[in-house]
Structure formats: structure tokens, C-alpha cells
């Protein structure tokens, strides 16, 4: 039991738990209100002054209650547009900070521990990189250390750390067994979908706006190929298509969305007829809070086990049945040479010929003239691409804002922009010419992590065009290549650095490309990849693989046996930890001293003790021992008898005698020599 009433001054656990809250709140700074962090810092100061006794009394309960009311109002007014989870975290940190000022009872302390554990869990939901995970795991260990300290306040901290380490090391194997072998459950209910995604693809593309996405260097996903990496030119990762254009913005088509929902309800599966060689790979997608998945065209799920969760869209788009809240691993096979004239032709035609009613008059005019020149669809497409290549267009991440008639402005006035501008203009031109076309957003490129793995970052986000020219179905056009070929061949990062646009954003990002930093960054990325692949990506399929590996074949009986085996293993572990019989009983101090002395004497006299009792052995060798040695050994024997058999106590203490015996023996020549 810990103390029921917690002292204000000099109580270490109170201070430590305040420190814990300070650190954890700071680590979540991007999701915290600044004023909440400020409050947390103030509480730390209050606790420090209480700990060192500068203030004798904790703040008045009424004061803190007043503060609580004010904070609640502040939180309500300041977090209107925040998603649920950050609001909850702010609330939790706020409440705990106020509680921290008033720790008086054991109960308060326990509440803080429970809330602290919850905060760590929130950290695991928000951040899942290896570094962050290790940080929050360490925070949890620290919290447990505080708890242990509160329950044994008088032991030295070294001893406490050791005991906690033993406890945690005992726990880990059991937890690992549970993690690997406990059956995975499907989600019980749908979690509220978060609206905010600072990074990630947007479902609305307005080329006139300033690109925000491309500047983020967060990881989007990693792809591990079974064979070699595809050529840079072929690394077009489709996420979803934008098919609705209003003259300014491209959005996901409502008709398409509606059709998809209907098809899903009817459970009509689309199985594209594939052609050509296959590329197999596995993707670990960072959380997007959305349903879409990325893949190279034309991708189908590699394994029937994924068919449960991945839905093959009729527009070649892959969607997951659940939003991606955590890193998600899935395996795909792509057939790049597939002719994409399958699916719902009439729907595709209808959706992808949609045009805004008015606007961009110059473009309309220009397309009409161009179309008259090139009646053939293929020639028209080629002419469009040529136009982008030869008319002095410039690739830039910071184009001027184009608010009215953006396509006109882009094509004829400014002639500068990034992928969204080019794709938008080209798709619009196609549609004006009566050719079905749409914009595909996704990622292009990727940085090789090792021989078979690509890392794709948010700045690799890209938009390109698909058009239905003839019976060969959807074909891909990327007008950006005509302007900035390096964007495609060298990757975005290369192109942007060349133009000097990316570096200026973050003073530290330049560092990451030089010397030791480059090495560390690469190493970190590799570790993080292994972490996602083997821990975060450990899903039902992997678990089934392990079961198959152990059992050979999956049958209910064998699985039941495996379950029983795991339980027995856990019981065995517990027995190992807590049944001390197999361990030899440690020797008492007097026994150790006596045995050490006997060893010295045996070495000195050459007469072994064998099974003789202590007294007998002394009598046997008494005559051979010269003076101080005999006396010292007799004292040790006496002490041993006193402790072991309750004989009358000797005058001297045995430990000193042992040291004296050693020096006495050292001074003498051994008898045997």
C-alpha cells in the first residue's frame, strides 16, 4: 500500500509524475493548444516549488476549480475546428495539470497514473514511427517506475530500477506470446473519421491555389518489390481519380461515388482481365484516415486473403473497406500492360465528358481551332503534349495565384505551374474536344531505400491525365514530363532542389542531404521501414502464415492444440519466474566466509576437508598450522559454529579474520613446497 495522504513537500513521485505530464504534453505539441502547454509548464513550476518547500501549501481547491472552469471555457472556444482525438488529448492534459496541483490523496495519484497511461496510448494512435514509438514506450516505463516508487518509497532508486526491470522483462515474453498468437478481431464499430489531414492527397484539386502538399517531407508509403524496382518512368502510383470539373476545381465525381456505393452493396466484384508481365509488391501505407489505397496500374490484390478488406473499383481504383487509421500493409500484383477498356464504359463516357457551363473562353476557342487541325484523337493528344513542350512553359512550385478563368490564365498568360496546372489544363482540353478524360492523383517516383524497397514521400504527390482515345481504353498522359522531365526521371526532390524551391522551406531540410546526416537519415528510414514491416504490419495474414509455418496445415483441432500450447507456455513461464525451488539457496554470510577460509587452508596445508565437520577438520589440521594462521582459522571455525549450530559466540568478527587469514597465509611459504 502506498501512503494514503500524500505529503506536499519532498515527495518524489508527485514531482516525477508532473515531469511525465510535461514531457508527454510537449511531445504532442503539434496537437496541443499552446496555452495548455503553458499551463502544464506552470504546474511543473508549482510542483517544483512545493517539492523544495518554497511554498508550504498546495493551491487552494477553490482557486483550482475556478481555473478549471476558465480552462474549460477556453478549450471550448479555441478548439472548434479540431478533430475529436486532439480535443480529447487537450482535455486530458488540462484536467490532469489541474489535478497535479492538488495531489493530496492516494486516489488522486492513481487517477493521474491511469490518465497518463491513456495519454501514452493516444501517442501511439497519433504517431507510429519507430522513434516515436520508442519514446512513448519509454514514457510508459517511466510511469510504471513512478508507480513502483510510490509503493516502496524507502528503497534506493537503483534497487527500484532493478526490480522494475525484472518485472518488465518477465512481462515481455508473455505479452509477445499474446501479441503473436492471440486471434485478431475485426473492428467492433466504426471510429469517427477525421476530417483533417494536413498531409496526404486532397479530394479537391484547385490548381489556382498554392500547393501546400508538395512541401511536406513526411513518408506516404513504402513499397517492397519481389523482384527488381520498376523504372522511374513507370512509378505512377494511382490513388484516386478526379472526374468532376467546375472550371476551377477538380473533385471526385458524385455519380462515380454513388455508383461505387451501389456496386458495393450489390457486391458486384470487378475482376479486370490482365495481360503481360506481373509485378508483385507489398505496400505499407501511412495512416490517411481515408479509404483509398495506392497501387501501380493495373493493380489487383495479390492474395485472396486481402479480398476481404480490399475492394477492386470499376475505375481501377483500390479502396479499403475501413479507413486507414494506422499503418496498413497489403500486397498487390500489377500488370502494367493491361488494356484498360474494361469496366463500365457508358458510365466512364458520361462522367468524363462533363464540362463546366462557362468560363475559360480563350481555352475553348483554342481547343476548337486545334481540333479542326487534328481530327484524329491520337494526333490531337500528341499536339496537346507538344504544345506544353514547345510554348515556353515553366515548372514551378510557387506559381502566381490564378483565381478567375484559371485555365486561360495558365495556358496563355503565366505559363508556369506544377503538375496540377498541367493536368487540369490538359484534361479540360481533352473534354472540350469530346474525348473522355479525367485527372488521376497519386504519387510519382520514390526514393530507393534498398535494392527492393522504395520510400514514397508526400512531396512525391502528383497529378496526371487519363484519356479514352480509342478502343484501347484509358491511356495515361503526363503533361508535366514535357515541361520538367527531371520531375519524372529524377524524382520530385531532385527537380525541386534543382530549382531551389524545396530547400528554402525548412532550414534543416538541407542538412539531411549531407554527410553523416544523410547516412543517419537513411539508417533511420531503414529502421523505420523494418519497424513498419514486422511490427506495425503484423496483421491477420502474417499471423496465419506463422500458424501455417508451425502447424503445417490449419485445422480446428490443430489450432485448438496450438492455443492450448500457448497457454501452457505462459503457465510455464510463470512457474519459471515464481517457483524458486530450482534455484540453489544462497549461502549465508558465515557459510561463505567459512568455505572461503577452508579453501585457503586446503591450499596452504594440502589437507582436504572432505566430509569432516568444521570442528573435526580443525582438529585434524591444528598441528600443522603455524601461529597466526591457526588462531585465525580457529576464530572463523568458532564463528561458523556459532552461527550454524548456535555455539557460544567468538570474540572476533569473522570477516576481518578472513582478511587477516589471507595476509597471514601470504606471508608464509606454502607447506607443500
Amino acid at each position, binding site marked *: *500500500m*502506498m*501512503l*494514503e495522504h500524500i505529503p506536499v513537500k519532498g515527495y518524489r513521485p508527485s514531482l516525477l509524475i508532473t515531469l511525465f505530464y510535461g514531457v508527454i504534453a510537449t511531445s504532442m505539441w503539434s496537437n496541443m493548444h499552446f496555452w495548455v502547454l503553458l499551463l502544464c509548464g506552470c504546474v511543473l513550476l508549482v510542483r517544483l516549488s512545493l517539492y523544495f518547500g518554497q511554498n508550504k501549501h498546495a493551491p487552494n481547491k477553490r482557486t483550482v476549480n475556478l481555473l478549471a472552469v476558465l480552462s474549460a471555457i477556453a478549450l471550448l472556444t479555441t478548439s472548434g475546428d479540431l478533430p475529436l482525438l486532439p480535443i480529447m488529448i487537450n482535455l486530458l492534459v488540462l484536467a490532469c495539470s489541474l489535478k497535479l496541483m492538488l495531489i493530496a490523496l492516494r486516489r488522486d495519484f*492513481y487517477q493521474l*497514473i*491511469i490518465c497518463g*497511461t*491513456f495519454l*501514452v*496510448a493516444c501517442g*501511439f*494512435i497519433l504517431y*507510429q514511427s519507430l522513434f516515436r*514509438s520508442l519514446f512513448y514506450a519509454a514514457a*510508459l516505463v517511466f510511469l*510504471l517506475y513512478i*508507480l*513502483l516508487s*510510490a*509503493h*516502496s*518509497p*524507502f*528503497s534506493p532508486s537503483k534497487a527500484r530500477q532493478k*526490480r*522494475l526491470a525484472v*518485472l*518488465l522483462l*518477465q*512481462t*515481455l515474453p*508473455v*505479452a509477445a506470446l*499474446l*501479441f503473436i498468437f*492471440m486471434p*485478431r*478481431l*475485426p*473492428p*467492433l*464499430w*466504426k*471510429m469517427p473519421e477525421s476530417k483533417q489531414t494536413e498531409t496526404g492527397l486532397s479530394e479537391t484539386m484547385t490548381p489556382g491555389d498554392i500547393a501546400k502538399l508538395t512541401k511536406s517531407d513526411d513518408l506516404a508509403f513504402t513499397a517492397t518489390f519481389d523482384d527488381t524496382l520498376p523504372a522511374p518512368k513507370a512509378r505512377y502510383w494511382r490513388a484516386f481519380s478526379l472526374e468532376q470539373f467546375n472550371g476551377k476545381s477538380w473533385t471526385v465525381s458524385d455519380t462515380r461515388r454513388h455508383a461505387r456505393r451501389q456496386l458495393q452493396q450489390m457486391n458486384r466484384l470487378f475482376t479486370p482481365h490482365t495481360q503481360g508481365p506481373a509485378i508483385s509488391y507489398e505496400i505499407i501505407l501511412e495512416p490517411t484516415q481515408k479509404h483509398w489505397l495506392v497501387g501501380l496500374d493495373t493493380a489487383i490484390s495479390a492474395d485472396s486473403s486481402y479480398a476481404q478488406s480490399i475492394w477492386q473499383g470499376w475505375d481501377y481504383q483500390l479502396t479499403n473497406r*475501413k479507413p486507414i*487509421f*494506422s499503418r*496498413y500493409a497489403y500486397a498487390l500484383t500489377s500488370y502494367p500492360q493491361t488494356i484498360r477498356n474494361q469496366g463500365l464504359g457508358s458510365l466512364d463516357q458520361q462522367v468524363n465528358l462533363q464540362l463546366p457551363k462557362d468560363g475559360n473562353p480563350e481555352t475553348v476557342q483554342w481547343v476548337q481551332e486545334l481540333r479542326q487541325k487534328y481530327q484524329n484523337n491520337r494526333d490531337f493528344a500528341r499536339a496537346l503534349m507538344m504544345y506544353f513542350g514547345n510554348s515556353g512553359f515553366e515548372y514551378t512550385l510557387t506559381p502566381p495565384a490564378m483565381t478567375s478563368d484559371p485555365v486561360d490564365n495558365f495556358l496563355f498568360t503565366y505559363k508556369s505551374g506544377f503538375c496540377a496546372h498541367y493536368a487540369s489544363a490538359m484534361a479540360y482540353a481533352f473534354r472540350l474536344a469530346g474525348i473522355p478524360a479525367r485527372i488521376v492523383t497519386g504519387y510519382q517516383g520514390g526514393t530507393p531505400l534498398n535494392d527492393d524497397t522504395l520510400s514514397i514521400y508526400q512531396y512525391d504527390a502528383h497529378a496526371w491525365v487519363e484519356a479514352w482515345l480509342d478502343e484501347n481504353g484509358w491511356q495515361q498522359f503526363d503533361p508535366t514530363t514535357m515541361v520538367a522531365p527531371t520531375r519524372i526521371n529524377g524524382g520530385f526532390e531532385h527537380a525541386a532542389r534543382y530549382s531551389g524551391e524545396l530547400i528554402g522551406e525548412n532550414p534543416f531540410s538541407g542538412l539531411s542531404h549531407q554527410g553523416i546526416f544523410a547516412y543517419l537519415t537513411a539508417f533511420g528510414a531503414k529502421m523505420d521501414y523494418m519497424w513498419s514491416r514486422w*511490427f*506495425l*504490419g*503484423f*496483421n491477420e495474414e502474417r499471423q496465419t502464415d506463422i500458424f501455417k509455418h508451425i502447424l503445417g496445415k490449419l485445422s480446428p483441432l490443430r489450432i485448438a492444440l496450438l492455443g492450448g500450447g500457448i497457454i501452457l507456455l505462459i503457465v510455464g513461464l*510463470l512457474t519459471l*519466474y*515464481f517457483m*524458486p525451488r530450482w534455484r540453489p*539457496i*544462497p549461502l549465508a554470510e558465515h557459510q561463505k566466509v567459512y568455505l572461503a577460509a577452508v579453501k585457503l587452508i586446503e591450499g596452504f596445508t594440502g589437507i582436504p576437508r572432505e566430509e569432516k565437520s568444521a570442528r573435526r577438520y580443525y582438529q585434524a589440521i591444528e598441528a600443522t598450522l603455524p601461529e597466526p594462521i591457526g588462531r585465525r582459522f580457529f576464530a572463523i571455525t568458532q564463528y561458523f559454529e556459532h552461527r550454524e549450530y548456535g555455539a557460544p559466540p567468538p570474540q572476533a568478527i569473522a570477516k576481518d579474520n578472513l582478511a587477516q587469514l589471507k595476509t597471514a597465509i601470504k606471508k608464509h611459504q606454502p607447506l607443500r613446497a
Partner: protein
Amino acid sequence: MVFSTALRTLAERWLQKRILPQQTHTLNRKNIFIFPGLFGLFYIVMTLCLFILAINYQNNLLLFMSQFLTSLLLITLFATYKNFSGLAFHAIAVKPVFAGEEVLLRINIVHKDQNQHYGLLEVRWQNTRQKHLVDLESDSLTVRLPMNTSQRGKFKLPRVTFNLAYPLGLIRCWTHIDFDQTYVVYPARQPCPILLSTSPDEGGKEKSVTLGNDDFYALQPWQKTDPLHRVAWKRVAKGGDWTSKVFSTPQAQSGYLNIADHGVDTELALKRLSWQVDTLASKGATYGLRLNQITLAPANTQAHREACLTALALYKRETTL
């Protein structure tokens, strides 16, 4: 209310069979109770919440965390038990006290096994709230457990509850131990003149009135009949109650203290006798005691004092045991 009392008696009866009264107890499987404390229950609820969050978010980190916390609970279950079992408690016989004073039960705690024991052991009387904490890592492991007394008589000490939640407070181990100890509470001491009668037979006739002027021995609540020069003015000046000083002349001769000399209020008489026995014993006088049927021959030993006081404590009370 009736139900809970019935439940309590039932539990008490069960406990009596399970943990037998003994002066020394070693904790083992038979006398340890173990269950998650309130904090432990909250911890379980929290772990369950984390587990549900984990499967809803399909978050492996969270899943592992919830499984780790579950395993930790399992491990602490055993660790707590191991840390508690093997402790041995030895009660030291309780010394009698006068009513109103505190009975002090001293319990020695020893380790009966090789294990080192850690944490704060909580010790209290069963069904009371007043707690005493002992650090199991300290060198001297003696608990002093006081209990208030109000009435004279011979009583059985209630069970002592030991409570330990080391290492993490999630799991609570406890036991209710009956040390098989009885204690005697002497009547409270009521100062009065000492009335020693020389003959054991006829109490009322040859009593020696010993009220004198020589030797101050006590303060008594002031009564209207007391002379004013005996009032303890110093005390009154300090704002205390009115009290009068009582003086006596030293007693040389031996005699009997007799309950019959002290009026009809038995309790008051016993209190006065208690005071007289205590005073006489501290002066080394020889005295005897007569309580109607019971007669204790005059003596001046410590054992005699205790016998007299015990007789006073148990006078007409023995049936209560």
C-alpha cells in the same frame, strides 16, 4: 442493514475456521486473500478500453500495449503474492492498562523464507480505518498497534488486518489475523482518600481516616463542601476547572481495602479502589483487598498488585467473556 450484518457474521464465522487463533502466523496459501484493489479494477477497465480502441483503429502498437498491460497484471498478481507470503507475524503479549489508556499490541515481523520483502505493509485492526504503515525493508520490523479502552474487564483482541500491494498497487494481498490475545483493562483510577481497614472481617468499624495535611497527593473536582483554602488556585487562575487539593498522611500500617467502604455505586467504588491499589503499590505499602466474596491477603509484590487490579477489573464481569 440486517443483511449486511448477517453477511458480516457469516464471513466472521468462515474466517474463524480458516485462520485459527495463534500467537504466531506465517503467511501462506491458506491465510492470504488476493484480489485487485480499486485501482487495479480501474486499470483493468482502462486496459479493456485500450484493447477496444486498438481493434477499432487496427493499431498494432496499441494492441501490444493493451496486451503488455494485461501481462503486467498477471505478473504482478504473482509478484504481489510472492512478496506477501512468507512473512511471519509474532504478537507480543499485551500489558494490562487502566481504562481510558491505550492498549498497545506489538507485533514482530520476520521473514520465514529466503525472499526479500519490499513495500509498505499496512496494518490496522479489522473493521477500523486507522492505519499504520511499516516499511518492510527497514531493519526493525515491529508494529505498535494501539487501541482505545473505555471499560474495565477482560477482552479479546480483534483481528489484525495486514495489507500489501507492492509492487504496483494493482493487486492487493491481505489477511485478517487473530493473534489469540486477551487483555485486561483495569478500572480507571479515581483519586480519593485511602481507606485501609485493619481487620479483614468487619470492614466498617476500624477504618483509619487518613485525610491529613502533610502530604499533597492529588486534585479532585471541587465540591461545595470543600474548604476554600484547599482550592488549587493556580489552576483556577489558568482558566481550568475548580479543583481542590487533597492531602494525606503516609500510611505505615497494612490493612485491607474494602469495596464495602465505598458506597453503593460499584463502578465508582472500583475506580477508587483501583486508584488506591495503584498508589499503595507505588509506595510499597502492604495491602489486601476485599471484594465481597473475594479476599486477597495483604502483600506488597508486583504480582499482588496485578492480581488485585485484575480482580477489580473482573469484578462481576467475568460472565462477559
